[in-house]
């Protein structure tokens, strides 16, 4: 199964590189042709000012744009937002927390109306860790991993399990034992009034458990009984024990006899006309559990501790694993269609009608400057670390860059910022003079932090205009294919360059461009060129 993940930070250590592709940081401009999408955004760790809650509110706007574009039969798994680290300046200012809650409740709402959406409550994972464990600042500053990469193994185990849950068809039926399972003690020995239900411990634990099972049955789960007992005794207990919560009318069917449970369960499945694979068997007796596991492997048989105080965690596990509703039913489909129409209307009136407006609202600043002693190491790092938006993947050390400068190359980089923060130096271009009038672009790189905002075009156009001002007439460029840079395979085509030829079976594509006219940038980018 291959996934595409929308993200706003480094999460590769958690989801790995097999069958997974990633968006740029905060980028929603590319939506590949797959059926499984994941939305994993978390708060930036180093921004605590009032813009943060505004930034959080854009997440949902972006999410809606994505939802409009993914196929009808696709699946989008959305992770909830959690507070990993936050510094609160004002004691009564909870705007960040309400922005988070707002996002999460909108997402839950989406899941109830759009059958493509499933929500994963990320706090199920994060609440097992302390604040110090969740964030590792050493790795954050080295690799921008907001979530501590030391938790990657735990996360993978949890996520694998979670995926199973999401993929599971919801089970339909619970098959319950009676003695020491639905109540404490043995009915045949302790009698109707001797069994433990209601009152003090352990009876209160069994009451609580029965009450919970009753609630579960209201969500459509079928309750049945399979017990070695005298049927008459049980019917009497259901009728006459005043503390009993689950009674005769709550069970769709039962097999209370001395036959083996394999035969009984098969009969129950036939009678209710459901598959064995939609049944979950709960019994306190380990040998009965083992028997069913061996004989009917399609029936789910969870562990059962036998300690009455463990009944509630057992109940939660049952719901989490087998009975949670993730997918809306046929009846809800119509609602989902109405909702889709509604979101489309909303989006056309909302803050961002389209990508253009969205980008405009970011107030992007691009500061372009030549290589110097302060940015040389960052430029080298960009060539070494960037894989996706890297036209030739030529990697350089600082000394290489020094040498190129001496040989008369022009090397520029750009610092990119917007109203949500500063992304630092995230673009670079290497220009090698070929003759008085001709220059070739040896490489062009954009960090994935700034993808999807049209910055590459602004950066290239501005640089080309500068060349034109300096009497350059003619530009050559090339694209060299690697395993990771296919998203820029047609970058020069899109930028208006003329394709000349390809070499090495298409792995290398050569382009040319004539600097006849000044190139224009969209007016909402604030571009500075510091020659």
């Amino acid at each position, binding site marked *: 199964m291959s996934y595409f993940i929308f993200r706003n930070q480094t999460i*590769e*250590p958690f989801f790995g*590189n097999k069958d997974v592709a990633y968006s740029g940081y905060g980028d929603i401009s590319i939506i590949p042709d797959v059926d499984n999408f994941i939305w994993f955004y978390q708060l930036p760790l180093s921004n605590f000012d009032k813009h943060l809650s505004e930034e959080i509110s854009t997440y949902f706007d972006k999410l809606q744009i994505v939802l409009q574009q993914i196929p009808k039969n696709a699946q989008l798994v959305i992770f909830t937002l959690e507070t990993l680290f936050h510094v609160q300046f004002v004691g009564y200012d909870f705007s960040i927390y309400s922005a988070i809650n707002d996002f999460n409740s909108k997402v839950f709402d989406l899941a109830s109306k759009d059958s493509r959406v499933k929500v994963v409550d990320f706090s199920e994972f994060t609440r097992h860790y302390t604040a110090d464990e969740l964030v590792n600042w*050493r*790795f954050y*500053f*080295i*690799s921008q*991993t907001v979530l501590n*990469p*030391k938790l*990657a193994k735990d996360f993978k185990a949890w996520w694998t399990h979670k995926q199973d849950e999401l993929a599971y068809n919801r089970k339909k039926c619970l098959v319950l034992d009676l003695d020491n399972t639905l109540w404490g003690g043995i009915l045949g020995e302790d009698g109707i009034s001797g069994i433990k239900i209601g009152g003090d411990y352990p009876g209160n634990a069994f009451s609580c458990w029965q009450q919970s099972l009753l609630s579960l049955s209201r969500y459509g789960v079928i309750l049945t009984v399979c017990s070695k007992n005298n049927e008459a005794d049980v019917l009497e207990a259901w009728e006459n024990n005043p503390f009993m919560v689950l009674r005769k009318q709550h069970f769709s069917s039962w097999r209370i006899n001395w036959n083996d449970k394999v035969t009984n369960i098969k009969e129950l499945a036939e009678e209710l006309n459901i598959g064995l694979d939609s049944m979950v068997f709960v019994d306190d007796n380990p040998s009965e559990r083992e028997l069913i596991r061996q004989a009917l492997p399609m029936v789910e048989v969870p562990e059962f501790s036998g300690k009455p105080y463990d009944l509630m965690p057992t109940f939660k596990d049952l719901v989490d694993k087998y009975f949670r509703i993730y997918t809306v039913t046929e009846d809800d489909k119509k609602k989902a269609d109405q909702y889709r129409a509604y979101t489309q209307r909303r989006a056309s009136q909302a803050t961002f009608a389209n990508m253009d407006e969205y980008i405009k609202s970011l107030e992007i600043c691009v500061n372009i400057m030549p290589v110097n002693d302060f940015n040389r190491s960052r430029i080298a790092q960009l060539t070494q*670390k960037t*894989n996706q938006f890297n036209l030739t993947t030529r990697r350089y050390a600082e000394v290489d860059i020094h040498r190129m400068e001496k040989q008369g190359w022009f090397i520029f980089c750009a610092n990119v910022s917007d109203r949500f923060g500063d992304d630092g130096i995230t673009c670079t271009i290497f220009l090698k003079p070929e003759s008085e009038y001709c220059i070739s672009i040896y490489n062009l790189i954009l960090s994935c932090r700034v993808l999807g905002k049209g910055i590459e075009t602004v950066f290239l156009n501005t640089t080309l205009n500068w060349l034109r001002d300096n009497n350059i007439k003619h530009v050559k460029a090339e694209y060299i294919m690697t395993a990771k840079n296919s998203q820029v395979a047609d970058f020069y085509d899109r930028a208006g360059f003329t394709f000349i030829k390809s070499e090495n079976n298409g792995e290398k594509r050569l382009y040319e461009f004539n600097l006849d006219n000044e190139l224009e940038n969209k007016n909402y980018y604030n571009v500075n060129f510091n020659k």
Partner: protein
Amino acid sequence: MKKLINIMREVLEDETIDTSCSQDSSENWDSLHHLNLMLELEEEFNIEFEPEEIAEMKSFEKVKEVVERKVH
């Protein structure tokens, strides 16, 4: 040393890793694999690297040097 090579081969998913290898000579050794390698070494040897050390551990020789310094 054998242990170090085995860890690196496994984490970097590259059987060609030997004592003379470096980030340039290993196709797989990108920034993600590098991070995974650092995490695995920290756990395996129960040590912690400084960011400066992580930046310089880009060859077998360097990895070995830093790990040995930390372990002893």
